[in-house]
């Protein structure tokens, strides 16, 4: 209740500004969860493949970077979106 009381006393412009900043954080944080897990899976499996077949490391590395690039794009969309959001 005390927090609500504080919120009510704030200047509405400042409130919007603060909530925008919180929203930006949530947008980027949310967008980073999935790609974080995804890149972990991609790199982990690439390392397994390289360890099992060291002679195919070149091909695996190229494919790994491709997989990382596709996965990472989602996180970067979130990163850009967090700047686009404005109060």
């Amino acid at each position: 209740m005390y927090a609500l009381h504080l919120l009510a006393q704030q200047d509405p412009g400042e409130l919007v500004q603060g909530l925008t900043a919180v929203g930006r954080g949530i947008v980027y944080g949310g967008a980073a969860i999935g790609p974080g897990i995804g890149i972990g899976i991609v790199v982990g499996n690439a390392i397994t493949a390289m360890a099992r077949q060291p002679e195919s490391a070149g091909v695996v590395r190229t494919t790994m970077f491709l997989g990382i690039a596709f996965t990472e794009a989602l996180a970067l969309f979130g990163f850009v979106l967090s700047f686009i959001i404005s109060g």
Partner: protein
Amino acid sequence: MLALEFPPISELVEWRSFGPGGLNKVALIYVVSALLTVAFFVVAASKGRRQRVPTGIAAIAESSVDFVRNQIIMQTMGTEGMVYLPLLATMFFFIFFSNIFEIVPGVQFPANARIAMPIVLAVLVWLIFNVVGLVKQGPIHYFKGILFPPGVPKALYLLVTPIELVSTLLVRPLSLSVRLFANMLAGHLILATFAILSAALFSASISIAVMPFSFLLLVFLMGFEILVSFLQAFIFTILAAVYIGGALHPEH
């Protein structure tokens, strides 16, 4: 407390224009990196012609062209893609040079942290792979390959066709440009954050004890950004090669 004033993002990436046609720092970096790319290959070619065994700049150019050929083209397109070696090699070096200005002292701005040039490059790649597909496969075959990928159950085309249309023709250029832009912007912001933090800690009284950690992390991140600017140039080029290769060969 700490005199920590983080500037708004516009202050970090927007530059005054000082020349004709709105020439500013970003445009200047692009001009310099384009000239560097041209000069690098011209000098290397004229030197390499006179030497039996290439040394110095000619050796660097030779091994980097070799890198583009073996790591990018052979992995994605095969020997058929050798026609695109000049395009991909110059694209790689142009992006790499404009990225590496992020850590060049006195400049310290990755020109690709503004989205203009990534968009131009992505549209260029988009045009090239579409034209290649239209010419090599013919319009009907090419769009059939995109919209109705073989090996999918008939009923699923209801779902697959719109997804493929959007992902091939819209999301590809978008993600290609945003990936490069956002990576470089994020790197620039990280470096700026730790530089500002180090400066603020340095001027404060007791907090100077923490300053070395922040400063060392800044130095470490500088090295990391060298890797990132190389990796982003590599990824942009290899994705361009993958898209062109996909347009060259229809999916089976």
